[in-house]
Every structure is written in C-alpha cells, then in structure tokens.
C-alpha cells in the first residue's frame, strides 16, 4: 500500500464572523494567531513526509482570509513534504467577502486550481437571514474574476430549505449562477439547525428556521431538475457537476479512500483507523501532533461505512470493489437489507453496482441506518 494516494485536508479555523447555520470549528480572525497556526500546520505535516497526494483541500473556517505570506509558506511546505501528483486537484474554499482580483491571481499562481465559492443565495434578504457578510453582486463578481484569472474548475455552494425561502428565489439563484457559464460544480445543502449554532439556539427558542420537510423535498426536486437543465448532473446526494468535474477530494470520503486532515478538529483516516485533533486553537498550536481521539475501525465498521458512504453517490459502489476490500460479498453480508430494499425498489443492483433509486436519495437515512 505504499503507492496509496492520499487526500490532504487543511482546516483554517478563522472567520470574520460566524454564519448563523455553521457548526464547523472556527474562531474570530486575529492576525497574530495566523502565523502561529500556519507554523503548527507545517509542523504537523512533517510526520507524513513523502506521502503521495493527489488532492489538497483548504477548508474552514475561511481559508481565503489567509494573507499571501501565510499561503505562500503553506504551499511551499506542502510541496516539500508531500509528493504531489501531476494534475492534482487543489481546492480552496472562498468567501466572496474576503477576496479581490489580486488575491485570486495570487492563489492561481500558487497552484490552486479549484475554488469552492460560498455563494449560498443570490437573494440579499436570504443572505442577511443566513448571516452572510457579502452581497449577491460580490459573489457574482468573484466568480467572474476567478474565471478570468484562469480558474476553470469552479464550484458554488447553495443553501435551500430555509423557512420563508421560496422556490422562485431558489430558481433565481440557480439560473443566475448557471448562466454565468463559469461553474463546473454546485453543492446544495438543505439548511439544518445544528446545536451550538445561532440558528440552533433560535430554533430552541421556538423560531422556525428550517422549512418543513415536504417543502424542503419539493425544493430539492426543483434543484435537481433545474441543475440538470444547465448540464449539472447529480453525482452525490447534495452535489452536482458537469461531466468529469466531480470533487475528487470529496469523492475520497464517499469512496472511503485514505485522507490526512491537518489542523484543529481535522479528521484523518488511514489503515483502518480514524483520528482527530482537539478543536481548541491553543491546544492544537501547543502540540499539533497530538491526537485527541482515535478510533480503530472493525471490519464491520468499515463495511458499514463503505456502504453508507457509497450509497450517497448516484452510481453507488461497485460490488467487485467491496469484495476486493473485504473479501466477502455485499449481498451475503447484508442479506435481509439487500433483499428487502431491492424488492421494494429502493435499492438498485445493475452493471455490477449497488445504488439508491433516485426516489430514495432524499430519504436515504431511513435506508442507510439499516446497514449500521
């Protein structure tokens, strides 16, 4: 397994302000912490020296907040510590409020070749409702600038299923984005109130934050058909792309391939174990190599994860690959589930692959939980 290809995730836990729905680990941006944090990331990297890597993903938080000096240090460390494959996918998440043309051009020169832009909506009212700091116009102009600076692989995030959000405005956002002729990829997330977020607190106090389930399902259907018309096909429950432009980094998660997570609260998974760091910035920077929690995955854990992650994909997973990894057959490992779900048409078995029926995608939890 020495020629294994890893995905590398770098968590940049700084934000100008926390969005109301966000439950990722992040802290108010302070310039003086940035340098120290980058140092810690680089220090942590060293233990993986020489690993072959074909995707790099800078997520957050808000990685686009990092100054040029920090980015430069980070990338020079990445290329000296890792054996980065030719044509590797190198993605950075971008908050439209945090970049200008120069910054984008700089990122491109560093070798970043894919941007995931947090657009969320093209309605100002909805952006305000979500606690976003940018306007629809800023988002659109960042996409245009990115394209002109040579980013040919661009993704945008959209949020739906917020209380009060209309299907019309959702359609407006989708068609507004797609008609820019710049995006190869769109991720659509149903708004979910997580505990510990602003929305979570407000929901507990009785405010309606999420749209009701039926409305949300209608919006999802609308998204699927609208995006298909613009040539963006669903390849995962929440992800849509032009042919050949799926997120290779995220595919590693869904295929249960190995990944290295660097930074506070970042998770890594390799050789049957999954581990992660403390979420505390100070603790992480004090000892960036310390593992907070480590989980050893049993065979059954790995089988279950392979199935529940794989079935998120439009094409599901290959039964051959299942057999190759586990030395047993999926249908024999999960006989009652396979029979029941195949019989009632929720699970498809064709061309040597198992996948969920289109109609099962948005109710997938009810099916996936049976494989745990």
């Amino acid at each position: 397994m020495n020629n294994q290809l890893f995905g590398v995730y770098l968590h940049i836990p700084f934000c100008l302000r926390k969005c109301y729905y966000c439950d990722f680990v992040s802290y108010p941006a302070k310039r003086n912490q940035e340098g120290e944090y980058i140092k810690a990331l680089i220090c942590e990297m060293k233990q993986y020296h020489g690993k072959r890597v074909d995707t790099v993903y800078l997520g957050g938080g808000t990685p686009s907040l990092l100054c040029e000096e920090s980015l430069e240090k980070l990338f020079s460390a990445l290329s000296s510590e890792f054996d980065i494959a030719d044509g590797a996918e190198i993605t950075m998440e971008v908050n439209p409020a945090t970049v200008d043309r120069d910054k984008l051009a700089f990122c491109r020169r560093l070798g970043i070749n894919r941007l995931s832009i947090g657009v969320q909506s093209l309605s100002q009212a909805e952006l305000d409702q979500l606690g976003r700091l940018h306007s629809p116009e800023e988002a659109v102009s960042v996409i245009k600038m990115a394209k002109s600076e040579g980013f040919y692989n661009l993704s945008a995030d959209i949020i739906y299923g917020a209380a009060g959000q209309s299907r019309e405005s959702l359609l407006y956002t989708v068609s507004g984005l797609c008609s820019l002729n710049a995006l190869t990829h769109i991720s659509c997330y149903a708004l979910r109130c997580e505990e510990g977020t602003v929305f979570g607190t407000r929901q507990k106090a009785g405010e309606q934050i999420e749209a009701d389930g039926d409305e949300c399902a209608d919006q999802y259907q609308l998204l699927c058909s609208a995006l298909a018309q613009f040539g963006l096909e669903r390849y995962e429950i929440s992800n849509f792309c032009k042919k050949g432009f799926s997120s290779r980094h995220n595919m590693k998660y869904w295929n249960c391939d190995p990944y290295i997570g660097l930074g506070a609260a970042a998770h890594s998974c390799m050789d049957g174990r999954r581990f992660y760091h403390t979420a505390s910035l100070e603790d992480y920077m004090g000892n960036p190599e310390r593992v907070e929690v480590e989980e050893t995955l049993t065979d059954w854990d790995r089988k279950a994860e392979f199935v529940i992650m794989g079935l998120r994909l439009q094409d599901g997973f290959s039964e051959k690959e299942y057999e190759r990894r586990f030395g047993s057959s999926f249908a024999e490992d999960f006989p009652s589930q396979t029979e029941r779900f195949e019989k009632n048409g929720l699970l498809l078995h064709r061309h040597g692959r198992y996948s969920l029926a289109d109609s099962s995608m948005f109710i997938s939890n009810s099916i996936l939980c049976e494989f745990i």
Partner: protein
Amino acid sequence: MKQENIRNFSIIAHIDHGKSTLADRLLEQTGEVTKREMEEQLLDNMELERERGITIKARAVRIVYKAKNGEEYVYNLIDTPGHVDFNYEVSRSLAACEGALLVVDASQGIEAQTLANTYLALEHDLEILPVINKIDLPSAQPDMVKEEIENVIGLDCSEAPLISAKNGINIEDVLEQIINVIPPPEGDPNAPLKALIFDSYYDSYRGVIVYIRIKEGTVKVGDEIRMMATGAVFRVVELGYLGSISMKPTNELSAGEVGYLTASIKDVHDTRVGDTITTTANPASEPLEGYKQVNPMVFCGIYPADGAKYDDLRDALAKLQLNDAALLFEPETSVALGFGFRCGFLGLLHMEIIQERLEREYMLDLVTTAPSVVYHVVKLNGETLQIDNPTNLPPAAEIDYMEEPIVDAVIMSPNDYVGNIMELCQDRRGVYKHMEYLDKTRVQIHYELPLNEIIYDFFDALKSRTKGYASFDYSLKEYRRSDLVKLDMLLNGEAVDALSFIVHKDKAYPRGRKMAEKLKEAIPRQLFEIPIQASVGNKVIARETVKALRKDVLAKCYGGDITRKKKLLEKQKEGKKRMRQIGTVEVPQEAFMSVLKLDE
C-alpha cells in the same frame, strides 16, 4: 399494653381533603417523628403517591400518646387510599380497625368518596369520629359542613374537632377525642391465634413482610404458623411494631395489637391479603370472615417492549399482586405485540398506577392495549362466554346477544354545572335516575352508565366540564343487553389485534374516526404511504393516510464528520428497534396508548 389503652383506626376522606396531612400531624404531635425526620406526607412513601398527591397503598403506623388523663395510649393508625378505584384497599384497612376518623374539608363539604368511604366504614361496624379540616381557609364554613354531615350521613358533629392539619391547629383535640369515640379492641389473648393479614410487601432480604392485626390469641417469635387459606406453614422469625421510620421488633403480639411478621416466606403466593394466620400448635377452628371480594372491572393487555423481558414482567406482576389482591394477570399472546399478560384492574386509575409502578419500580418498558370491560356473550348454541379481550370475541354470526356492565354512578357537584354533567352523561349513553340537593348550591346526580363509557376518559371529561369541582363514584349495578360491535383498526390492510375493541354500535363511527386520526398522529411517516382504516365486520367506516416520508437525509457529509453522522444513523436505528413491526408498518409503542386518550 392493656387492650383498653389501644385504639386501632383509619382515616377516611375524599381525595385532597387532608387525610395524609392529618396523619403527618398526628405523628409529629405525639413525637413519633421528630421535626427533622418529618417529610411531608410521611405515610405516602411511594414516589408515585407523593407525585400524584394521593395514597395508593395502605400503610400502618404505631403511635404512643400520653393523654390528658395521664394514661399512655397506643394508636395504630392505618392509612387508606382516597380514590374510588381503591375502595377495596379501604375495606381491607377498615377490617383491621375499630374506628375511623372522617376528615371533611371545611370549604368543600361532603364529596362522593366521603360518602362511599363512610358507608364502607359503617359496613364494618366502625365508630366514626368526624373531623372538620382546613378551618383556616377563608372559604371555610365549618358550621355548614357539620350540618351537612349530620343531614346527609346522620353523624353527630357536636363534638367534631375543628382543625387545620396543615397549620397544626387543634390536633390535640383529635388525639383526645379518639380515646372517647373509638372503642378499644376486644379479643382473648389466650384464645387460639387469629391474625388478619391486611397488607404485605416483599423485601429482598427478609422475604415477605406481612402486616397483621391480631384479633384473637397471641403469636410469639419461633411459633409455627399456618396460613389458613393457602395451608402454607412457616416459623415466625421476627415480630414487631410498625414505626413510621423503622420497624420495632418485639417478642410477641397479642389480641388487639397491630404489627408485622416475617417468617422467611419466599413465595409471594403463600400470603394472601385477607387470609387468617393461626398457630399449628393451637389452631383456630374457623378463619376470620374474609374481606369483601372485589373483582377487577377493567382489563388490558400489558406487554414488555422488549420481548426478552417477559419473565421480568411476570415476576414484577407477581410481586405487585402480593399486596394488591385486586390485580389479576394471566399470560396472553398478541400477533402485534408478542407475549404478554392480560391484566385485570379495579378501574382506570388502578390500571395507570400499576403500569407506572411496573415502569418505575421495575424499570420495565411496556406496551399496553386499549382497556376493556368484561362482556357477557351468549352464543346461538346457548353457550355463555365472558369476554375481556376483544380478540376472543366469536364471529358475529355465532352471537345471539351480548351484555355489558352497567354502573350506578353518583356525581356531586355545584349546581352550576348540572347542565354540563347531564350533557356528558347523555353523550356516554347514561340513563338519568334522579337528583337531589345536598344544600342550596350542591347537588347529587344519579345516573346509570355503561362501564365501557367511563373507563377511557370520563374523569378527565367530567373535571374539565366542572372546573374540577365535581366528584364521582360508581358501583356495579348489573349486566344489561346491548347492541355491541367489534371495531378493528387496520394498518396497511392488516388488522392489528392489540388495537381492536368492543363498542356500542352507535359509537363505532365516531370512535373509529377518532382512533384513525389519533393513529395518524402517532405513526411517523415511513418509506411508503400507510392507509389506516377502522372497520366493523368487513365494512370500513373511517380512513386516514400517513403520507410517505419525503425528507430524511444528511445533506452534508464529508470526511471528518463520519463518526458523528454514523452516530445519528445509529440513533435512528435504535429508534426503529423500539417500534413494533406490524406487517410492513413500524408502530411506536406510544401509539397503542395514545389512542386511548380520545379527547373530546
């Protein structure tokens, strides 16, 4: 202790009239319990009793009182429950006494259970000392209440103590009056032993602990004793008095005394409340007169949520039955619920209490079916059946006719609510008998009501229609022919046996419709649409649909989150496990219970 200086008595009252509070004061005033030990309502030592503010199980305690005449007296206070369902417990406690304190709320006056309990006490030939409580309330009208007691019950109230148990006013009066009004016990300490079992409970260290009242003779530690009804023989290990905080062992108990007995009794079936204990050396020829036998009126199925807990449920029921002779249970099976027990209760409250005790004290997760009364079914071939489970009802074609139990119901209420009460009773197929005025503003209404109309939510409905002022009591009158049908509930086309019930033909449609609506609320949306139907015979009379689930998804699912997301799915799977699989439909356990609370 000389017999002349012993007084055995109960306290009887309508619920909330202050029975337990008075008991607490008596303990405090006589120094039986120090202030520090005093918890409110000491005698109600079941958690459930404290929460509901009612006494469920009878309890006994011994008090030593130094009277004004300089003599010491022993008072054995035997607490009684105040609820209509527990008349049996009252009767059992009363049989161990010579007298009773009748506590009446000075602001409320006589209520339904005041009367019911008083009549029970009179049946046992008890001397009754009326006590007017809560005289410190602004709305108290002690003179009017005294007059009411004299007029309605015919008790002399000229000497009745006027007290406030809550604030400890005139408790001394009660303690003194007990000596004068309540007679000392009789009975020959040298006669063959006759000890009445009036309560018992199971202690995991000492075995069954039996509460006894010695009617005749004497029992000593080491005596060989026989339970006269069951024939079981034991050797007495320990005897003692019932302190409120702890037991006080002694070497012997003799005629007139109240105490406890242990004898390494392991099998709960060997000691029946109501049985007589005698010695094998000098046995009594006749047992004491048994208690009034009570028969359960309400039945339901009780099932363990987890089938593996069947044995635990059986053991728990057996232990509860030990000191609750009115509880019946026998094994039954249900297609929907698996193995469980058909249980018989005195009434709906009794049923709820038993369920709660099983859940709290024995940590059992339960599923219960709709309660049913006992129907008499006469078949065309002349055979007569007693049906307490709708599943056992023969096909309609084989039935000649059916009879249902009818009760005499007495409702007392301020006269403002008479209209509401009559409307409710009429709606429940009641037959109006008569009505009398207790005083200028309070009435007593008599109705005949089918029992199956009051076992669901009659109390609640009555309360809400009378702002809580009405009180209610009932007793079985007779069985009467009635036009009854079996109502089945179908989920996805399959009848669910645990949801069937027997109902009057005219009530089938509204009840079926309500049930379908309730089930629709209780059953979560699933992968497929689920039709819910109510049917009588083969005719569907109501239908609802649980729409198919449309959203159940983790929208965001990336690397690091896997552990957490997996936990969410695990939790969801656990939730599914707790549901009952009926055909292809998953039914939460609450669904079986929630449909019983068919609000108006």
